[in-house]
């Protein structure tokens, strides 16, 4: 079920009504949310939900065993089984073809003939998020950061909670599980803020991300040869905006929807394109993933506790694997590697000269520009459907002497301008709007939401597009 579909607009109030009708009964309200999550997920395809249940059940049992033993060896063995089980599921459903094709290619290089036939394996929606989330449960239990839950429903709900099952934010067990034990409550202010947050997400998705995608980005990336270099620059810049507004819109709706049931989900974005270096960028972009990778991959690899060379190695491994997490292709690995190299260079500069303490404005500006351009260019690998198309885009960025962009219509330019201003404008604008909104009388609030719905209906594309991160 898509957040911006009519189905979800009916589903959410219905679940809201049912949940708060039984909110006084702790077990019942969890069952309501679990069943609602199952319906939400199975609206796309019912069978993959069995995989979600398998992951949840396996980790529930393993965590229970872990909690019953103090033997470090046995606990390590159990957490290893959990890691292998979850990564096995991910490896089979997401990476089987990738491994197979890579083996065939490598075999060809060394003279071993492996015939590659594409395996028709369905990738369950949101599987990467499910696996990372469920892994965080057993690892947190292993580390003692979280207690093993006695209730199977708690674990299943943590993994399949519908606001974030498809595309995050990736919630930690140590953060979410304690919320299940609290009495259900929703204040007027929190409820109003949640509704506004959902509306904000819909506006970002339907009035910015989708408009940029349908009117410029998709066309430029499909046939770069048909566009002038100015149009390709506009297309790549627009994609940089589109992916932020698309993904952060999803996070907004997820956070708002969860808040309607009294649950708090961590923030996922903090104006990432304001970053002045790549390290700061990853502290602002897809925060739940970058902190997950830091805590469950980078630090276990050794983090920055070893030599400088080992630190750089760990950064590269983390970023390349992070790239492949986004998509089973070497192109995505390359995208991760580009970021890894950028992070390594940043560290090398800091090791040599120290982090800048009070840099002059021009140096800050240059640093910001270099970071933004690096992120923007790396996105070409992320978006282009093949390396050939990516190279065409890069060639297209070279000025061709045609200083015109007839395909960048005034409407697209307006959307780009609004998106840019909103991103780089005053950071407390939304907070101020939200503060006013939650104080308004109930009918006025409802009226404003209605106005937003009418504006979306009239300005958005006729047909919305799925969220970009759904495929991961």
């Amino acid at each position, binding site marked *: *079920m*898509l957040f911006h*579909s*009519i*189905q979800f607009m*009916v589903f959410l*109030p219905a679940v*809201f*009504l049912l949940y*708060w009708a039984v909110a006084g009964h702790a077990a019942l309200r969890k069952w309501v949310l679990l069943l609602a999550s199952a319906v939400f997920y199975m*609206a*796309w*395809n019912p069978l993959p939900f069995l995989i979600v249940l398998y992951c949840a059940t396996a980790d529930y049992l393993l965590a229970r065993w872990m909690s019953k033993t103090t033997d470090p060896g046995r606990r390590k063995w159990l957490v290893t089984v959990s890691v292998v089980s979850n990564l096995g599921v991910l490896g089979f459903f997401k990476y089987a*073809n*990738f491994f197979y094709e890579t083996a065939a290619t490598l075999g060809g290089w060394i003279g071993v003939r492996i015939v590659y036939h594409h395996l028709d*394996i369905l*990738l369950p*929606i949101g599987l990467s998020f499910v696996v990372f989330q469920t892994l965080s449960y057993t690892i947190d239990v292993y580390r003692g950061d979280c207690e093993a839950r006695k209730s199977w429903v708690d674990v299943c709900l943590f993994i399949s909670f519908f606001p974030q099952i498809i595309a995050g934010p990736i919630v930690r067990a140590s953060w979410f599980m304690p919320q299940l034990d609290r009495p259900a409550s929703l204040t*007027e202010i929190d*409820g*109003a803020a949640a*509704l506004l947050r959902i509306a904000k997400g819909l506006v970002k998705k339907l009035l910015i991300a*989708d408009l940029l995608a*349908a009117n410029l*980005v*998709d*066309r430029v990336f*499909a*046939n770069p*040869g*048909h566009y*002038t270099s100015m149009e390709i620059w506009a297309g790549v810049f627009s994609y940089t905006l589109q992916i932020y507004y698309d993904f952060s819109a999803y996070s907004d709706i997820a956070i708002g929807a969860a808040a*309607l049931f009294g649950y708090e989900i961590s923030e996922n974005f903090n104006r990432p394109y304001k970053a002045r270096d790549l390290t700061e960028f990853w502290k602002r972009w897809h925060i739940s993933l970058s902190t997950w990778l830091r805590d469950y991959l980078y630090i276990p690899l050794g983090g920055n506790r070893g030599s400088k060379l080992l630190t750089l190695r760990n950064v590269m491994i983390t970023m390349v694997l992070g790239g492949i997490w986004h*998509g*089973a*292709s070497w192109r*995505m690995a390359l995208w991760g590697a580009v970021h890894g190299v950028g992070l390594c260079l940043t560290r090398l500069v800091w090791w040599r000269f120290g982090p800048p303490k009070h840099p002059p404005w021009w140096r800050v500006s240059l640093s910001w520009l270099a970071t933004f351009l690096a992120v923007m260019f790396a996105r070409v690998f992320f978006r*282009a*459907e093949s390396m*050939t198309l990516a190279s065409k885009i890069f060639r297209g960025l070279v000025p061709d002497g045609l200083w015109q962009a*007839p395909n960048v219509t005034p409407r697209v330019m307006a959307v780009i301008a609004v998106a840019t201003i909103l991103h780089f404008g005053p950071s407390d604008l939304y907070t101020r709007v939200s503060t006013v909104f939650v104080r308004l009388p*109930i*009918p006025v*609030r*409802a009226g404003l*939401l*209605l106005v937003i*719905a*009418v504006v979306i*209906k*009239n300005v958005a*594309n*006729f*047909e*919305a*597009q*799925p969220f*970009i991160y*759904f*495929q991961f």
Partner: protein
Amino acid sequence: MSFLKRHATGATLLFFILAVVGLSAAPVPEWLRPLDDFAKEDPFGAFLASVFTRPESVPRPSQGYVAGGGAEAIAEEDQYVDYDSESDPDEDQVELAPHHDRVEVGGRTPTAQGLGLDDQASTATAGAARPSKWTPPERKAYDFWAKRLGLRVPPIVRPCRTPAGPGPCRERALDHFFSRLSDAELGRGEPVRIVHYGDSLIASDKISDMVRRRLQERFGSGGKGFLMIKKFNSFQRGYRTGDGSGGWRLDVITQRVLRDRYFGYSGASFTAQNAGEETTFRRLGRSQVAEVYYLKDRKGGRLEVLADKTVLGEINTRTNAATSEAMKARFTIPPGTTEFKLRAVDYGPRLFGVVLEADQPGVVYESIGLPGATSRVWNEPDREDFERQLGLRDPALVIVMLGGNDGLMLSKERTTTERIEADLDAFVGRIQEASAKTDCLLVSPLEAVRKKGSQFIPKPEVLEVIELERRVAERRGCAFWDMHAAMGGEGSLAKWVKSDLMLPDLIHPRNRGSNLLGEMMSEAIMDAYDEHRARAGEGS
């Protein structure tokens, strides 16, 4: 009040829902209605249908980013396929010739002939209006939409091709094509080749696929016809191109900068950038003959031709001659072959495509569409080269369905009607120069609109393009079919959009919209054919 305070969020939601439903059902302008369903006859039924419709856009297994919309989505997103439009009508009918040979044909244009005795004889036979074994197929989806949208299929306009004078017209546009069709219906004669030129609407081969399907149901299939070397944009269908390796350089006439003018009659060429580059054609169906269209020039190289693992021969596309020349090499495909493959032995072979034919009576329908194509770009290929290749194909009918992109350019004031008319006239002139026996049919573009709020404002430029196409057809003795009128004329696109027959770009129809257009076009052709047979019968 305290109840509201305690249930403030629920109350806000309730007020919001009531306001949405109330406003949607109220007699207010359409743009003010949050939900369109409540303005329909059965509002709650329509709303429930919307709610319980499965989500259309679902992600596919990913190898990295897959576009959520745009061209990729245009090509593949539509789940409401009324027909199995990916199936290949030739698939299950494998009857292959027992021998193979190879003939290289020089670049000579076949002699253009008028209607000779044979042609007249066949016309006379066909004109006897024999009862046909063909019965019109059941078309539930088409009937449903035609009734719902109130569609009427306008007739094909067929100008008289003989000089004006007393008495009835002796020869109309399409007469020759229809006599060839008539032969095919009787199970005799050569394959009846139809070449359908166009833009992205034809590149996707959806409208044309339906026309092909209907014609082949009645007149038999003569094979797949011309296929490009590899798929180069997401509009195209895999089974209408070869499965090419990654090192083929594409040159296409819609590119902004062209390296030369050698594009054959398909507007695209593929040059092997490395030795070992290959392309494979599968699902050969009833194909018995393969023709490789290539450029013989100084930069060429050798090309190996294989049927499964059997080498059928080698083509040397290199020449020391100063001029480049479009050529074709013909091969017979051995029985039981599952793959027809071309492999570059050296760097450099430049190919246009491969023809797969059954060498038996029936319709061969080639769709040659290039996304973004205008009337101008089809004049880009070298004239002699284009005419030679088209002459070698010897089509009975060439359909030209352009104008959509011309209209767009016109609306942006980047061209003029005079320019478009001159370009289209020149392109039709090229076709007629290639083969005097070839009939031509011009098909109008679809309606184009711009969206203002929830309103669809028809673009007047489309009507200008349609009128200039009528003039070119009249002047050149070509038939003309108004697809814009078939859709319902000016203002009809809004209905198509509301019936979910168009993609969100408002330019390309969904599969079911394309099928509908294809059904109407094939019906118009069949009606004109039946009328031709009836007239010929009266005359005999």
